[in-house]
């Protein structure tokens, strides 16, 4: 799939990023890694594994990194489809491929991964409850009904890559993307995907209190945007 670019936000993932890049290389040579001011050897690991290194001079957050990666990927020749993919090894390339196949049929602009249609391996009970509450919240604030609001695995076409502008720098960007889907009337669909909560990704992942941050930011965006 030479017309596909994977966009991978990377923040201190030196120990796993090479494997993730190698996995993606089985389907496309274009892996855009946005190193977001990591303090470990992520940058070298990316270069050695043969990913495109796009280097933020400062840490700007996952949302900002995605936007940067998308803008760089648009400049690669012949890219028509884009995937956002986490660097911590939680996603499966096979899931991304299924989503890309759906896109290729041409009736959709964006395909979103959902862990609640699919399988969530190793997540704690509290995490699941929290994520489901986040979905309810997102459905109410965005007007779009989804089963998973904060999944990093997405596939979309060039139209979306050129029109979606993510401004929320941090984890709030997931809610913002859903709002943008509504605002730009993208044709969307959710598909089940598997998320692997390994010890590594759980220790690095989001602390649950961060949910409060996301909720407050989402409400503030509603108030300040119009």
């Amino acid at each position: 799939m030479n017309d596909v670019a994977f966009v991978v936000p990377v923040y201190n993932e030196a120990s796993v990023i090479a494997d993730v890049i190698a996995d993606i290389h089985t389907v496309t040579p274009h892996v855009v890694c946005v190193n977001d001011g990591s303090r470990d050897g992520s940058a070298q690991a990316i270069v050695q594994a043969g990913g495109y290194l796009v280097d933020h001079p400062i840490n700007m957050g996952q949302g900002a990194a995605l936007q940067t990666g998308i803008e760089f990927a648009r400049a690669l020749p012949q890219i028509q489809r884009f995937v956002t993919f986490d660097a911590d090894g939680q996603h499966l390339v096979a899931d991304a491929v299924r989503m890309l196949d759906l896109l290729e049929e041409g009736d959709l602009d964006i395909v979103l991964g959902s862990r609640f249609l699919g399988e969530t391996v190793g997540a704690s009970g509290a995490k699941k409850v929290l994520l489901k509450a986040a979905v309810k919240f997102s459905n109410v604030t965005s007007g779009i009904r989804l089963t998973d609001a904060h999944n990093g695995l997405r596939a979309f076409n060039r139209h979306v890559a050129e029109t979606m502008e993510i401004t929320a720098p941090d984890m709030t960007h997931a809610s913002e993307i859903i709002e943008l889907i509504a605002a730009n009337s993208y044709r969307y669909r959710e598909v089940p995907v598997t998320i692997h909560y390994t010890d590594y990704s759980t220790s690095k992942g989001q602390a649950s209190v961060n949910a409060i941050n996301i909720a407050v930011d989402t409400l503030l965006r509603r108030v300040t945007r119009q």
Partner: protein
Amino acid sequence: MIVVQFLLIAAFVFLFFVAIRSRTAHGVSASKKLFFMAFIAVLVVAVLAPNLVTEVANLVGVGRGTDLVLYLLAVAFGFYVVNDYLRGQDSRQQLHRLARRIAVLEALERYRLDHRDETRPATDPQAEQSQQAQQAQRADDRDA
């Protein structure tokens, strides 16, 4: 009493001049400057004539002048916090745009990709138009 009045007024006057004479002051809107001047003037009056403040307080149904001052300060502080938050967001967004541009340009160069192939980040057409108009204007100036 007199000493306190003197110190307070000296402080206000100092604040006023620091604010007005600062190098970046010309970037602040005129209405904000006027508002700030009025604010300082009211403070000076309040210090010199506390009874006046109490009278105004009674007029609007507040018992004591100090209470009125406290309420007004609370409101002013609220505005300040919100204003400051929004400004912080704006400048953070500008910083991020700049850093993103640097990161993308640097990467394009590293992989020898053509800058022209790149689609420009989505901007609103109006801004784009005025930008083009400005460029045309500049070209005219050069020609003249």
